[in-house]
Every structure is written in C-alpha cells, then in structure tokens.
C-alpha cells in the first residue's frame, strides 16, 4: 500500500523525538533506538505515533512504544493498590516486591529471545531446578571453589540449550515438544541426583554474631546484645543481597535489549522469527541463530535457579515450584508484548511484564486476599489486563493495521 510509505513522512520529525529521548523510564533501550532494530519496531512506533498526531502528551508517547500499553496497565494497577492499601508504597514493601519479579524478569528476558524466533522454551523450569544442585555437587562434593562451581553449572545449562537447539533447529522437532521433554527429564534428573532431599546452598550460610549495642533509654545508658547476620560477599552478589537479584535483572535486561536492538545477533533473531525461510535464503545462519538463543534462554533459567537458591540459602528439589516459576517467566515475556507467533518482542517488555506480575501478586497479598483466592485473582487479572493491552494496541495500530 503506497499510503503506508508516503503517509508517515510528515509525522516523522515530530514523532521521532519521543522514540529517541522521550521514552520515559523503563522503556528506554528499545524505544530509544531511532536506528536500531528499533527501526523495525521504532519505525512502527513512529508510524503509530500518527494515531496520536496533534496529541503530544506523555500518555500517547508511552503508548507509541511497543511495550507502551503494558506500562500503562502496570501503572494503573500500581496506583490502584497504592490507593487501596496503606503499605503498598513503602520501601519495606518494595523490598518484598523484588523477589516477586526480578527472577521472572531474567527468565522472561531469556524467553523473549526464543519467543521472537517463534519458538518456546519450557526447559527453563528444568535448568532452574538442576543448576543449583549441580552447583551444590560441584562445590560440596567435587570441591570446586564457589564461583567456578557456578560457572560450570551454567555451562551445563548452556549444554541443555544446545541440545534444545539441536533438536529444534536441526532435527526439526517442535520446540514445545523438545523443551517439554527436556523439562521433565531435567526435573527427573534433579530428583535422582538429589534423592529428593533439600540441601544447604554452598556459600550462602548465614553466620550470626552478637554484639553489644548501646541504647539510651530515659537518659540511662543500657547495653543490649544484638544479633548481626553476616553473609559472604559471594552470597551477597549471587542473590542474597537485598538488591542483588534486582541488579542482575536490570543488567541482564539492559544488556540483552542492547543485543536485540543494536547487534547483528538481535537483527538476525528478528529476521529468523519474522521470515525463517527468507532469512535463510538471504544467507542468515538460521540454525546457528536458533541454537544460540536456546543456549541463552536455558542459561538464564539456570542462573535464576542459583540466585534463588543462594537467596533462600537452600536448594529445594521442588518440581512444582519450578514449573510455576517457568510459567511466570513465560508470562512475563508474553505480558510484555512478545508475540507467541514470533517476529516481535522486547526484553524491556519482559521486565515490565514481570513487574506487573509482581505488583499484582504483592498487591493482592497486601489487600488481604485469602490465599486460596490468590491464584484465581491472579489468573483473572492477567486475562483482563491482557485484554486491555490488546485493545490499547488495536487503537494504537488502527491507522495502518488494514
């Protein structure tokens, strides 16, 4: 349609700016790509900007982003909980919120790379469960130092991704089937090597010491013993520090978004997901791209498993928990605007999707929702929020979806 090419020209300069600089807060890397792969998306964004021509408000700028609608939905949900619970906007609650979303953001970020290909990786539940046990075995049984043990465990996860990629890209089995099988196999393997027993996470033990602390009470100095918990630097970095998982999540999301938007790896990922045959004919190494992304995704699953094990200082052979984590990770990616059909998605979206899930769960708990109702509400909320999301997207794309 010729209209598609001539039409955007007038809107170009005006709408360019919000794509580049006006992207508020979290949306920045993907949106701030006036020339990156973003031009695929960023261009879309500019085109979409048309819909809101003449209306240069913050809302329309946010909506012009691919993950714009979920940002709006997340903010609305946050405001709702802030108004309805007294403790939502407190730093204490912020800290409780972190473990609800940081792990999902990392899982979602990895999953985005696979889902843009039009594939899915269910095996992250398996690497999530297996990696901390490998870490434990390598450290406690084999005697590797902590960091090398983590690295070797993650290399094992990469091997899992390699196998997923091999069966999907080269043998040609559907990734859903391959990774479903891998999920069960890895969970089974974990049960076998752990004998179903939880163990203490190496390097994550908390040492408590007491010290005398001087208080002044009614003008009288009194000395009281107080317990101080010490955790190792290793543990602080790998999950046990309050902001550790958040920092991991932010760094991973930013790095992967940059990879997706500004490198050939990202460009080829979108190319394969958008037109696999065409990308192959153009000379893109389709199989290599696929395998690489499966490796990335499986590794993200393993890393989250280790971070969570260090944070909770125990390794649990909890297959049901792993499956739940897996679905939260995929949900984060999907909620963040990555299409299950492939061809499009953003890592930042997965972060926001994870934040949405975290806020929803945390908010419902704060509101005192009966624990039995929690999942029910969570599920319905996801459907409602996604419906709103789709509706907002339709309005946004209205001008050129025909």
């Amino acid at each position, binding site marked *: 349609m*010729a209209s598609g090419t001539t039409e955007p020209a007038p809107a170009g300069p005006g709408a360019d700016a919000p794509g580049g600089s006006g992207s508020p807060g979290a949306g920045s890397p993907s949106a701030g790509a006036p*020339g990156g*792969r973003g031009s695929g998306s960023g261009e*879309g964004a500019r*085109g979409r900007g048309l819909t809101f021509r003449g209306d240069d408000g913050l809302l329309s700028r946010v909506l012009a982003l691919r993950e714009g609608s979920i940002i709006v939905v997340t903010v609305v949900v946050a405001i709702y909980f802030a108004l309805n619970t007294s403790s939502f906007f407190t730093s204490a609650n912020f800290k409780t919120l972190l473990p609800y979303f940081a792990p999902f953001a990392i899982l979602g970020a990895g999953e985005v790379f696979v889902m843009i290909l039009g594939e899915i990786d269910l095996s992250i539940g398996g690497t999530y469960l297996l990696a901390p046990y490998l870490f434990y075995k390598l450290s406690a049984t084999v005697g590797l130092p902590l960091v090398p043990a983590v690295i070797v465990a993650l290399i094992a996860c990469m091997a899992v991704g390699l196998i997923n990629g091999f069966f999907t890209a080269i043998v040609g089995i559907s990734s859903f089937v391959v990774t479903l099988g891998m999920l069960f196999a890895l969970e089974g393997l974990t049960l076998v090597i752990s004998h179903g027993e939880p163990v203490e996470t190496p390097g994550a033990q908390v040492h408590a010491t007491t010290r005398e602390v001087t208080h002044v009470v009614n003008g009288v100095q009194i000395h009281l013993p107080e317990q101080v918990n010490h955790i190792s630097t290793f543990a602080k970095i790998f999950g046990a520090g309050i902001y550790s998982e958040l920092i991991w999540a932010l760094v991973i999301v930013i790095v992967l978004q940059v990879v997706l938007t500004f490198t050939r790896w990202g*460009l*080829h990922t*979108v190319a394969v997901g958008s037109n696999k*045959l065409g990308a192959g004919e153009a*000379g893109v190494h389709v199989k290599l791209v696929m395998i690489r992304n499966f490796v990335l995704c499986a590794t993200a699953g393993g890393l989250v498993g280790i971070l969570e094990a260090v944070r909770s200082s125990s390794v649990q052979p909890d297959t049901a928990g792993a499956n739940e984590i897996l679905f939260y990770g995929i949900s984060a990616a999907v909620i963040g605007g990555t299409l299950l059909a492939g061809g499009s998605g953003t890592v930042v979206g997965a972060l926001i999707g994870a934040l949405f899930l975290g806020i929803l769960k945390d908010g419902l708990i704060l509101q005192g929702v009966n624990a039995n109702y929690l999942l029910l509400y969570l599920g319905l909320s996801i459907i409602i929020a996604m419906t709103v999301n789709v509706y907002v997207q339709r309005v946004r794309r209205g001008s050129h979806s025909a």
Partner: protein
Amino acid sequence: MPDAVSTEPGVVQPTSASDDVLRVEHLSKRFGPVTALRDISLHLRKGEVLGLLGDNGAGKSTLIKILSGFQKQDSGQMFLHGQPYEPKGVDDARSKGIDTVYQDLALIDELSVYHNLFLRRELVHRPLPFLANREMKLRARAALDEIGINIPRIDVAVARLSGGQRQAIAVARTVNGDADIILLDEPLAAMGAKEGSMILDLVARLKEEGKVSIIMILHNYVHVLQACDRVSMIQEGVIALDKPTAETSVEELTDIVVNEYRRAREETHAETRAETGVQG
C-alpha cells in the same frame, strides 16, 4: 530411453560463447521419485539478460536454487568464469558473485528497508560490534538512488511497502551486495502493470550499465521479448529452446508450449487407456 536423454531430439546441447560468465552442462536433480531437472545445459554471457521460460513444475526454480547454492545438483557441472563452480551454500555462491532474488523475496517484514538491504552484510562499529545504522542508511539511500528506485523512506518496515517496491528492494539488495550475476525468480509475479514496468525498467538500467548479467524467470512472453537478450525454455527438466529474442516471437514460443500441452494430453489419454485395458 533414459540412457539416450542427452541425444533426445528437442534437447538443446551445451553451447558457449567466449564471453560466458556462467555455463551449465547436463545438470540433473531428483527429489525422491520426482525428476525436477533431467538434463539442463545453458550459458550466460557477460552483461546479458537471459529469460527463462517454462511451465509450472518444469524445473525453473530448482535450477535457480542450484545456481544460487541453495540446493545441490545430482549430476552435471557448472562453470563460473570458466572455472568449475561448486557452491557450498548461499553464502559461498554470493561470495563468488551469484545472488538471487527469490519468489518469496526473502525480505523480512519486521525490519526496515535498509536493514533488509544489508541483511547478512550488516555494517558494524568497532571495537563494540553495534550496528552502524547511520552508515547503512546513507549507503542504502545511495544504492537505491543509483539504480533509480524511489523509496520515500528507508527506515520504514518493508511490510508497509507495495509489491513493486519490495521487489525493487530485493533486486537492489543483490546489486548492493556486489553480485555480478543476478538470478531473478519471477520478478513480476503478482504485480500490476505499473509496478511490473518499474521492475523491467530497473532491469533495463542494470543492463545498460553492463556490470551485471541476469537470468530471469518470467511467464509473460511479451515481457521476455521486451526485456531479455536471449530466451531459454525449460520443458520437463530439459532445455527445449535456446534462441536470441531477436530471432523468436511470441508465436513461436506459444507454439512450443501448445505442442507440449497436446503431447502431454495424448500421453495422459494413452496411460488412461492402458490402465483401463489392464483392468478389463
């Protein structure tokens, strides 16, 4: 009969010219029970535009895919600038200067015009290998201008372009990639007259420049006579005709095809009769 394939009447034997850039001799290719190519011989001279005609399923696309390194022939040889040419893959063929514009265009809808133009040949910064988008945009614009393709904006996703513009970009991609032999697989498929003439103009301009040689699959005889220097017709996996377009006409080309239809129909009837005979 199969033994005598190469001496069968109606099969054009290998010919060559002193300025051949590409020569193909006795190419054959089977897919399981289906014989796509039986015995294909053709040549392409420097700066020439060769039109490839043939029915659906005659083997044109298979031939193009073998030439472009996407598939490998079962037997037969190919020569590029007189040297044996055995592409190991699309990349290899491209590095040797043979590039293809496929029927499905191999364009990525989600990506911008200039990313499509540079797909697999992206320019990156150093030392951090980020995409050099500014540079790619400039060069893409220059490349499109050079071959006279008018795309108002090169940072729009190609999904939003017309069929003719997409085809033009696909052609530009091959020229941009420094190909000296370009294979066009039905460049006018599903295209209106205006868009089609835009592509034929583009081919004419490329021919004028004389830097590239082109093999083009077409269906419309008028287009062939208008745009090509020479025409080869494939029928049932062999080259049935090979003539300069100046020496042939729409009538002759049509006759060949009509005769082919008649022969095929009689064959089908004969088979049907034979089958019913066996049953009876």
